[in-house]
C-alpha cells in the first residue's frame, strides 16, 4: 500500500524533502513504518522523541495503517 508521509522540523532535513510517497506491505503498523523509514534514512534513529500523527490524529502508537493514510512525522522544536 502507498502512504503519504509528511515531514516537519528537522525530519525535512534528514529525509531531504517535505512530502514523500512511501510503499509498505498491507496491514503494516506505525512501528513497521518507523522501522522502514529508519532503515532507509539512518539519521532518523537519533530522533528519540517524535510524534507520529495519522490522518491528523496522534493516538495509538501501534496503530495499523491503511492505503493512502497521511502520516506526519513531527519532531520537537525548541525555538522561541
Amino acid at each position, binding site marked *: 500500500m502507498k502512504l503519504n508521509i509528511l515531514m*516537519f*522540523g*528537522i525530519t525535512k532535513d534528514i529525509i531531504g524533502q*517535505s512530502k514523500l510517497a512511501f510503499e509498505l506491505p498491507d496491514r503494516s503498523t506505525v512501528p513497521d513504518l518507523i522501522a522502514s523509514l529508519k532503515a532507509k534514512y539512518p539519521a532518523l534513529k*537519533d*530522533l*528519540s*522523541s*517524535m*510524534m507520529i*500523527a495519522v490522518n*491528523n*490524529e*496522534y*493516538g495509538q502508537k501501534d496503530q495499523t495503517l491503511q492505503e493512502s493514510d497521511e502520516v*506526519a512525522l*513531527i*519532531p*520537537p*522544536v*525548541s*525555538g*522561541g
Partner: protein
Amino acid sequence: MSDIHFSKEELERYSRHLIIPEFNIEGQRKLKAAKVLIVGTGGLGAPLLSYLVAAGVGTVGIVDFDVVDDSNLQRQILFTVDDVGRPKVEAAAERLRRQNPHVQIITYNTQLTSDNALDIIKDYDVVADGTDNFPTRYLVNDACVLLNKVNVYASIFRFEGQLSVFNYTDKEGKVSPNYRDLFPEPPPPGLVPSCAEGGVIGVLPGILGSLQANEVIKVISGVGEPLAGKLFLFDALTFETRTLKIYRDPANPLNGEHPTQTALIDYEMFCGIPGSEDEKQQVKELSVQDLYALIENKKDFQLIDVREPYEYEIANLGGELIPLNQIEEAVDKIASNKQVVVHCRSGVRSGKAIEKLEKKYGFTNLYNLKGGILAWADEIDHSVPKY
C-alpha cells in the same frame, strides 16, 4: 469578580473589548484579576507581552536572564537599538509600562531553574512558554503540571510553528495533555537546532506569539474554546496549517497512570547537555589564537570549512569549502599527512565532521576550531561579521 473595578481611563482604553457581546466587562474583569507569567522575552515573548499588557491582564511576570543583542532585533520587536546590551526584562518592562500603566509588571532577571521555578510560577494563574531551549521547555512543563497551572505553549523553527494549551482543566474536570505526552524524551543534544543555530524567519514568532496571547486571553476569560487536546502546526512557507488531536499518555511520568516524578529534576542532565567541558572533549581542538599563529608562522596545514555556500558568502576565513553533508564524498580532498583544521560557525558541525571522519575513515590529524568563525570574529578579527 464584582470587586474588580475600572477607572474612567481604563473603561475608555478597553472599550473595544467591552462592546464584544460574549466578552464584555466580565471578560475584562477576569483579565484584570489574572496573573500571567511569560517565560522568555524573545521572539514569542515580544508579541505575547505586548498584546497581554495592551489587553489589560492585571499582573504580568517576565522571566529572562539574557541581555538584548543586535541579532534579536530582526524579530524581537519590543526592543530598539538603544536597548542593545540591557537586560531584556528591564528593557521590556520599561516599554510595557509606557504601553499600559494600568498593568502591574513584575520582572525576574534570572534564569528559570529547578531551584526557583516552583517558587516563581506558584503565584501565577497561567504560564506562557516562549523559551528557546529543551531543558527549559521540560522545566516549564513539569513545573506547571506539578503546580496544576495551564501552560500555553508555542515553539518555532525556521518557517514552522507549534502551538497548544497544555494541562488545561475543562468544565468536566478533564485535564488536557502536556508536553511530556507528545515528547516523552528530549532529542539528543545538537540534533534539533535552536533559532540561533537553525535560523528563524522573523515574522514567524510574531504570528505564533500572537496566537499564544489569544489562547492566554481565552483561558483567562473562559470565552471560546482553548487549543487544549490539540496541537496546531503552521508552515509559513506553504501556508499549510494543521490541527492535530492529541491524547494523554498513560506512561506520562508526571500525571499518567503510575506517576513516578513528583518533583523537578536536573533538566540539563535530562536533555543530555554535558555539565562540564571534559565530557564534550571527544575531538581534538584548536583555539582561534593557535590558528592565527599557524597562519602567521606560515605553517603547512589545511583549513576546511564545513558550512554551506550561503554562509561562506557572509564571512569566511579562506578555508576549503566542503559542506558537512558532502564531507564523505569529498574525503579524498582532506589531507592525511599534515595538520587539518576544520571549522564551521560555532564549532558544532565541524565537531560532527571530525567525529565521522575519525570513526569511519581513521583520520588522526584533524583539529576542531574552538568556537568557529564566531570566536575568530570576537578574538582575532573584528571586521568579520557575526551571524
